[in-house]
């Protein structure tokens, strides 16, 4: 499944998978998604991320927290929505895992 990074950075040790910038895409196996999302990586399924409505220009211009600090309010609103969606997705993801492990 393809996930998109919404915030922060991460690394999947022993693999080339390394997330550093907003909008970066990753095709993750279930176990990789579990390892990253379970630990708090702010990843969102691609479809959901696309629904947030970031423009290509915004993604290129505000790749990380340092750059995002100077972004306009319109970007922050979308970014906040993406982060909230990633948190909600993580909660659902963990709930599904817990159900699976019952």
């Amino acid at each position, binding site marked *: 499944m393809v996930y998109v990074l919404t915030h*922060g950075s991460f690394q999947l*040790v022993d693999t080339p998978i390394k997330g550093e910038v907003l909008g970066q895409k990753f095709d993750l196996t279930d176990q990789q998604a579990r390892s990253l999302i379970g*630990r708090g990586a702010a990843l969102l399924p691609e479809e959901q991320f696309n629904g947030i409505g970031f423009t290509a220009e915004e993604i290129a211009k505000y790749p990380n927290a340092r750059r995002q600090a100077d972004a306009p309010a319109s970007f922050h609103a979308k970014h906040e929505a993406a982060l909230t969606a990633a948190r909600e997705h993580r909660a659902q993801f963990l709930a599904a895992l817990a159900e699976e492990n019952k």
Partner: protein
Amino acid sequence: MSAQFASPFVERLILAPQAAFNLIPETGNLWSNIATGVQLLRAGSGCKIKADPTLIPNPVKAGTRSMQPGIPGRRSNNTWTLPSVPIIPCGVTLTVPDMDLLFQAIFGQVATAGAYTLADGAVVPFILARFQHGQPTLSQQFAVGCITTDWSININSDIITLSSNGQCYWVYDSENFANEDTVANGGCKGTGGITAFPVEPTSPGVLGTLQQGFKGVATFDANSVDSVTFPLISADVKGKTGNSYTNDAFGTTYPALPAGGRRMVSTRCTFQETDAAALSNLKVKAKTKTAMNVTYQIGTTAGSIITISLKGVQLAVPEYSDEAARVVTAFSDSDASASTVSATDEIAIAFT
């Protein structure tokens, strides 16, 4: 063929949660190394894990002045140490770092929205494992029921670090696993426990990147330090959790239920000596023991900001010393205290 050597750089340290100090989370009698909360710890050298049963000396007169062999005593001499572990924020606001369990063990509870506050009623145990990555024939260690007794955070160094140490319930070594006690005998092995030495997690995920430890803001009694009139040269925050295992329970050789005694939190801070009003204020209040709040905020980028808030700090009277071209004013260990009898707010740490 020559022996496989160990290198300090191939070691991987793993933190993992426990529901109870004497239970290893297991699936099918194997440690659940992919469970939520199992985390690679990005740490440098110096981790030490040790479980050495005490030795009961033989008290019997043997007709000789020579020592006779003793017998193994209680398994109460189990310790762990993690020095200078970089505190790496995860890069996402209001979210705990990878080393979450180390902070939970200090504060006694999970964080709320990335903020750790003290709790009186619980001692949080965790698993600390040393795996020699990809070299299973070397000694691997698996410390169960680690509880924190002492900790310190070093501020204004190149990288902000947390050092902590404490006691463990027991430590499994890969060479000796076959000889360890079963659950029925107080161990964590066999029915209801694990049946094989734990295996290193594969491809663990880590969040965030190293941050400089000297960028940020500090306030003392509501006055912010600055680099012109009120320069802070060094600081640390340290504490004792008061946590300790009961080591004299009848019926077991292992430690029993951990308990929590008085906790202590203190800070040390050193300034370049100036005539700044903010520094003079600290000197005056150190003599009168007037309590004040102190805040250290390390980092300035959202998602990578660590804020340590201390309340009721009663500064020690400073000492002045020459240090190359400057004179420094050092306030040694100064205790923080709760703001009211119903509060446990002498320290809080927030990741924002």
